[in-house]
């Protein structure tokens, strides 16, 4: 019976126009089929999640959160946002289980290849109008920004979730 299954599957004769579904045997048959040598596919998961989860780190301080909001110019918005960061850090902490002594960091998979420079010749450009089309505020050929060199207000004065209740 099993031989028949595989035999049908192996037939490559063209013109077998009937669309055939891959027959799925009951799970047990895969492992204990008489006469067939065991498939190299491991029957059980090779590892489990979080076997050696390190102790949870101290919570990220409000100062660091504020610092992140300033650096990224993106806000946490609510407690869920902060919780997301905490979980992300906890997830990333698994990296410390790996022994990387003597291993060089890898920037790119193409590190063994040369990066070629091209000739310093202008080959394209003169597309000022196209580029300006997508900007909302512009004057002649300039993008217009609000006044610069004004730092973001401090935490206490900003309208941010981190201010606390």
């Amino acid at each position, binding site marked *: 019976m099993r031989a028949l299954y*595989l035999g049908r599957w*192996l037939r490559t004769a063209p013109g*077998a126009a009937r*669309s*055939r*579904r*891959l027959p*799925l045997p009951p*799970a047990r048959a*895969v492992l204990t089929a008489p006469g*067939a*040598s065991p*498939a*190299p*596919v491991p*029957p059980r*998961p*090779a590892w489990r999640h979080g076997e050696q989860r390190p102790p949870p780190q101290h919570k*990220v301080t409000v100062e*660091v959160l504020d610092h*992140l*909001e300033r*650096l*990224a*110019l*993106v806000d*946490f918005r609510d407690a*869920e*946002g902060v919780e*997301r960061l905490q*979980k*992300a*850090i906890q997830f*990333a902490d698994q*990296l*410390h289980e*790996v022994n*990387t002594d003597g*291993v*060089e*960091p890898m*920037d*790119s*998979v*193409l590190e063994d290849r040369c*990066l*070629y420079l*091209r000739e310093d010749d202008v080959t394209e450009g003169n*597309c000022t109008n*196209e580029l300006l*089309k*997508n900007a*909302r*505020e512009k004057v002649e050929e300039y993008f217009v*920004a*609000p*006044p610069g060199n*004004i*730092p*973001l207000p401090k935490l206490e004065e900003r309208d941010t979730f981190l201010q606390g209740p």
Partner: protein
Amino acid sequence: AALKGELRFQVSVALKEGRVTPTELCQRCLSLIKSTKFLNAYITVAEETALKQAEESEKRYRRGQPLGVLDGIPVAVKDNFNTAGIETTCASNMLKGYISPYNATVVQKLLDQGAVLLGKTNLDEFAMGSGSTDGIFGPVRNPWSYSRQYKEKSHSEDKEPNWVITGGSSGGSAAAVSSFTCFAALGSDTGGSTRNPAAHCGVVGLKPTYGLISRHGLIPLVNSMDVPGILARCVDDASVVLGSLAGHDPKDSTTIQDNFKPFELPNLTDVSQLSIGIPKEYHAPGLSSEILALWSKAADLFKNAGAKVIEVSLPHTRYSIVCYHVLCTAEVASNMARFDGLEYGHRSDMKKSTESMYAATRREGFNDVVRGRILSGNYFLLKQNYENYFIKAQKVRRLIANDFVKVFGSGVDILLTPTTLSDAVPYVEFIKEDNRTRSAQDDILTQAANMAGLPAINVPTGLSERGLPVGLQFIGRSFHEKQLLTVAKWFEKQVKFPMIQLEVKRHDHSACHNQKSASFS
């Protein structure tokens, strides 16, 4: 004439012989897009330009001078590729209304071959996600949710069974190819974003070697891992598209300089010279017993055909997703810094200062997922964390890449693994967990190939008990796409994956139960 729309080659032949014209083909696809609007696969449908391109193609065929095999073939492109004159949104408020001033290199190459660009497909916002559920235009529905195969197995008497996700982030592209609205589509693959939806939608999803295809014009997520991905209905089609896209691009310095020669795939009959590796760590926790069984059968298939099938080990597989998490968020933090409202995209009305305008723009433009990744990335890049997280992750990346080098160095030609842990889940189930958790779960089997820059392909293998597609993944050596695709084609021929029996009301409102849904007559 009953057109087997399934194989693009056959359509190509039909175009050449005049049995169908490019404009007819284009119109049928556009009509089918309208009929399948509920799938939400497309964000923008470029009807006018597509018809113009089809007309140009028709003129060329009449003169007997088609540009190539792709001339007149309707394609779709994921909405994170720049397309001149067509809105490119990345499914984000940040780029809503942004009309690209240029074509991405891969888009330009397709157009230069005469392909007809039907439109831009839906995705997770900025390609961050594994479900194509987190974009501002809403989630993409898996066409198989509406297939006879799924409905028959759902045991629901009167109510419509819960629709399932496409997987992500290139879900729109996968759904478009799977529902016959186009013959090939471009996606992007950073952690599995092309192969994951390909597996769930029952199509071929190819991730080429990093450095083979230009990323110029692909809005970047992770510069060291992104690649454009190809989705098609069969391996031959994917190979033809690859042939037209691969090669050095002076505008992308991360493309290799080696000469690329497009190839035709041989019809392999003898696999006795092949050595297939089964990495044991890819039996990850949570792998469904169905997929395990399929994986076993596939291994047996190769063994019985004479190939050498051996178990191998990639010991650092379990850390691949953690490593990805750190490197991805770090690179995202950098790549998203360009969105400040000044030169393009959304701009807030806040005028007090440059910094506050930037902050407000980004607050308004990005969704939770994007903001979360930017903040995490910045955390890992802080001076106090740089060594412990970012550099550490880069070291782990080398270990992962070395795992593959060792295995391929020991004589293994191709690795055979599952692509996903299970078949597609219903949307209502999927959204119960947050984006990061889902991505961590769903990318486990696909991510390592991006870490190491290796080519990988999903080949649809069979249907699950619920009537949904399941695929298996082949991973090959760097720049050995020909070998990878040859083996994939052999495998595809053996398993004869069934055609989707899509039940769709045609645009002219007549119900149409397509037995051979591929035929456009």
